[in-house]
Structures are given as structure tokens and as C-alpha cells.
């Protein structure tokens, strides 16, 4: 187990190293980074200050060291629009994104899991086709367009829900559905295939043979085991939603991390853009590491084979 954790941690560090190197390279490939890092229209003296802060007058390896130092000290650079370290801004917005992501996760559970179970239990029935249709639409209907259509229907035409902003549950419903939509479809597909696999197993046959009612077999025996991969996916989805809800947050003026990134783009605040992207990467790598380790802890086969 110790060896497994050690190896996975090394992988995670390698991943973060490559990620930081990628971001570092992209910023430098696309022109003079000073013009990206400094405020538009900055004086030559200010440009010199930025060069010194990021070590841009130094050779590339030294620059990279300065870049990594900025990440490790947890500042991720200074946003020149907010005049604050990017990491401070990121963690200020995190609770808002978390609220939205949790609501979206709830929506994806409510749609995805029951529909997935019914599809698996009644394979090739009408219910299964309904489930397949939902899964297909989840992939094909862009979440942000669904958001716009909901605004049109529920805010403009019916005047039931507020169009944007943060507040009570009424503000949360539409962004949560728009964000959770895609993830509902992916949960549905995974629940279905995971249930199908479990339902084929020997112990389910045994449970049926010993005369348990169908509901008990499905709810107590099958669902409990099919749940493990589903919960894992939901956990990873939650972290992705925290960081990737850019358009949904823009459409509903939700003050989360995605909107922070968008503001960074529009105010040409490159340290902010770069910092938010790096922070998102760090968070996801760490969560993936945690999931791997937890899996190995629960299921010894994983730590022995891989």
C-alpha cells in the first residue's frame, strides 16, 4: 500500500510538472510574455518590474524556477485588475462555485441514477429507450444553450425565475440544471452499464434463486455494488464542475471560478487566467490522486495489479 501511494504521488508530481511546463511554454510561445503579464499600456518602468517579478530577463530555466516558486508559495502571481494574489481570488470564489456544483450534482443524481437503474433493469424496454434518449440529448444539447432557452421560457415568458445572480434557490435552479445536464447523461450511462454488469453476476442470481423479491435484489444487492463507480465519477465530476462551469456562470452572472476566468480573459488579465488554469489543474490532479488511493484502499486488487 505504501509503495502504491508513493508511486501514485510520483505520477501526480510528474503530471503537475508537465502541466506547469505546458502553461509556461504556451505563454512564451505566443509572443512576448511581458505584454501578456503587464497591464495594457504600461510604462517601460512597469514592464521592467514585471520582468523582475517573473524573472523574464533571466535565462529560461531560471524563469521556470521563478514560475514554479510562484506556484509553490501559493500566490500564483498578482492579478493586476484586482491587485490581489490569484490564489486569494480563487479561494474567494470557490464557495460560490461549490454551491453551484453541488446543486448541479444533485440534479445529475436525480435524473441520472433512477433513469440508469430503470434502463438496466428493463433492458430494451420502452424505459430503456427513454433512458438512451436522455443520454443522447445530454451529449447533444449544449448546456449553455439549454441555459439560454430556460431563461427565455422561465424568466422572460413565464416570469417564474430570476434570470441571473446569486441568492435563494430560485436563482440556483436554472444554472444547476444547465450545468448538471451533461453530467446527468454521463451518470445515467455509467449507472446503466454498472448495473447491467452487477445484475449478471453470480450473487445476484443466487439472491434471486433464494426467492428474494425483485425490489430487494435490485435495491439492496445490486445497487449497492453498482454505486461505487457511480460515486467516483460524481466526485470527479464535482471537481470538474467547480472549475469548468465558465459559460454557465457567465450566462447566469454567477460569481464563481469560471466567471473569474472569463473576467481575466476580458480584462486581458493574463496572470489571472494563467493562475486560475494552474489552480484548476492542481486541484483535479490532487482529487484524482485521492480517488486512486481510496480505490486501492477499498479494493486490494488495484494496488497489486497496477
Amino acid at each position, binding site marked *: 500500500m505504501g509503495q502504491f501511494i508513493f508511486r501514485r504521488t510520483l*505520477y501526480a508530481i*510528474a*503530471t*503537475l*510538472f*508537465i*502541466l506547469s511546463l*505546458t*502553461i509556461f511554454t*504556451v*505563454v512564451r*510561445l*505566443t509572443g512576448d510574455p511581458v505584454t*501578456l503579464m503587464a497591464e495594457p499600456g504600461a510604462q517601460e518602468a512597469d514592464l521592467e518590474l514585471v520582468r523582475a517579478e517573473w524573472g523574464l530577463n533571466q535565462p529560461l530555466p531560471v524563469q521556470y524556477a521563478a514560475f514554479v516558486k510562484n506556484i509553490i508559495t501559493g500566490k500564483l502571481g498578482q492579478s493586476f485588475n484586482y491587485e490581489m494574489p490569484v490564489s486569494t481570488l480563487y479561494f474567494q470564489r470557490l464557495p460560490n462555485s461549490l454551491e453551484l456544483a453541488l446543486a448541479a450534482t444533485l440534479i445529475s443524481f436525480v435524473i441520472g441514477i433512477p433513469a440508469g437503474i430503470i434502463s438496466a433493469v428493463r433492458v430494451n424496454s420502452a424505459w430503456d429507450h427513454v433512458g438512451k434518449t436522455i443520454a*443522447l*440529448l445530454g*451529449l*447533444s*444539447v*449544449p448546456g*449553455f*444553450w439549454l441555459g*439560454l*432557452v430556460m*431563461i*427565455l421560457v422561465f424568466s*422572460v*415568458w413565464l416570469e417564474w425565475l430570476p*434570470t441571473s445572480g446569486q441568492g435563494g434557490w430560485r436563482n440556483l435552479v436554472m444554472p444547476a440544471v444547465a450545468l448538471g445536464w451533461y453530467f446527468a447523461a454521463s451518470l445515467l450511462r455509467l449507472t446503466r*452499464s454498472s448495473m447491467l454488469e452487477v445484475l449478471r453476476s453470480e450473487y445476484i442470481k443466487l439472491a434471486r434463486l433464494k426467492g428474494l423479491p425483485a425490489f430487494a435484489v435490485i435495491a439492496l444487492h445490486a445497487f449497492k455494488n453498482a454505486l461505487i463507480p457511480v460515486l467516483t465519477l460524481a466526485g470527479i465530476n464535482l471537481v*470538474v464542475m467547480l*472549475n*469548468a462551469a*465558465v*459559460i454557465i456562470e*457567465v*450566462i447566469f452572472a454567477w460569481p464563481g471560478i469560471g466567471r473569474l*476566468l*472569463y473576467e*481575466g*480573459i*476580458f480584462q486581458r488579465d*493574463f496572470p489571472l*487566467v*494563467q493562475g486560475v*488554469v494552474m489552480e*484548476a*489543474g492542481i486541484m*483535479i*490532479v490532487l482529487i*484524482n490522486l485521492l480517488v486512486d488511493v481510496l480505490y486501492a484502499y477499498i479494493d486490494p486488487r488495484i494496488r497489486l495489479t497496477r
Partner: protein
Amino acid sequence: MSVTTLQPIRAFNRRRIVRDLPFLPLAILVPFVLIAVFANVIAPYDPTEPIPGAKIFEPPFWSSGGSVHTLLGTDFQSRDVLSRLIFGARVSLIVGVMGTIVAGSIGTTLGMLAGYIGGWVDQLIMRVTDAWLALPAIVFAIFLATMVGPSMWNIVIILGCVYWTRYARVIRGEVLSLREREFVKLAEIAGASRTRIIMRHILPNVMNSTMVLASLTIGVVIIAEASLSFLGVGVPPPEPAWGSMLADGRSMLMVGDWWLTIFPGLGILLVVLATQLFGDWLRIRLDPQQRNL
């Protein structure tokens, strides 16, 4: 001699292929491609120029205040929404297909190299794949687009660079087992070079998977392009892209100018739906083991 004996089988297969063709996806995709290719012939107006004499925000022709000259209404510069949709199909088609080709080429090449050569090459490629997978694709694409600057061909390259990771993983896995097969071993014993083995023996055997992945990537790339254009870091104005049309229409949503939001979104929805259905069909055709899933 073999040609003549094979003919009956071929004829049979051709008939079967026609019978099994997925009609719904093709009924959407064929017109979509034709519209995109012949956009300049079909579109009634120039998509980037205001129509002389037309009002801004005219509704579609069947609504009150609409005009039969602008069937689907006009936008905030009194440009024809229908013409912009038609030319927008061209942008979606080019970005969707070319972005998928770039992603598929990068991913398949790296996957074959990682799987066949193994060792540190494999380690390096897979660690890069992991690192690029760590970022949500859309965040990575936004980051690249912000740095590189908006243009349609930049978006093609960017989306290709973002979506290759899945190919690399799948293809590497396949090559790991292909590498142990006898025809590869025999080619190695016969002294074929690595390049020759990869090109002649590995590549033809992973093409099926690449095609299936490609059919499923196109829709994802089309939505990603629309997302980038919506955020203003994709295809730059005045070029008509469905994503930027949605962004233009957003400000008029509050007053109920629905046609600016509904039509471009329906375009994306139909095309992506069709590519997904086509991808499912292709997967089942090319990989019989998947038929029961």
C-alpha cells in the same frame, strides 16, 4: 482469380451496408454538409453585411412584423439570420472535421509510438497525456485561445491539441496487444524497420478505433467551438459562427427576441445529435463486441 470469386460476397455486403445505413443521422448530416459546402450559393444575403432597407431585430416571417425577405429574421446589425446560419454551418463543419483530424492524427501517432516503442517513450507520452487530461478540456481550450488569439484556424489547432488525449490512451492500449500478435512478430523477424511495422502493420489495425473515436469527437469539437465563440475567444466577428450568434442574441433574450437564440442552438443540437447517432452506428458496425452494450 480471387477477384471473380470474391465478387458475390462483395455484392452481398454492399446491399447489406445500404440496408443498415443509419437514415436519421444521414438525413441531418447530408443536408448539413451540402449547406455548408454550397453556403455562398444557397444563402440569400451576405452574412456579414446589413441588408439595405431592413430593420434590426425583425422577427421570422410568420410572426407579426416579420418579412418574407428575411425568413428567419434579422440581428442587431440588420443582417439576415438565415444567411448567417447557413454560413455558420460552414464554420462548424470546417472546425468540427479539421479539429477532429488534427486531434486524431496527434493522438493516434502518439498512441502508436507509446504502445509500440514502450519504455521511456511510453512513460513520457502517457505522463503528458495525463497532464493534459487533468485540465477540463474547455478550460484548457479557453486558456490556449486567449494566449494564441482568435481565428478559425487557430481554433482548429487548439481543439486538436486539446482533444487528442483520448485517442492516445485507446490506441496505446490496442497497440500493446497488437505488438504481441504473430504477424507483427514475423515482420520483426523478417527485419522490417519500426517505421514500416507501425505504418504497414499497426496503423491499419487501429484505424477502426480511430474512426469510431473520430465520429464521437466531431460533436464535442463543434460544441467546444461554439462555446469558445460564445465567450468571444473563438471565431472572431463578423464571421458568422453559431456560438457567436448565440452571444449576440443573448442581450436581446430579455426582451423576448427568441429567434436569435433558438435557431443557432437548434443547428448545433441537430448536427451534434446526428454525429453521435452516426458514431454509435459506426461503433457497432466496426466492433461487433460492442453490439450488446
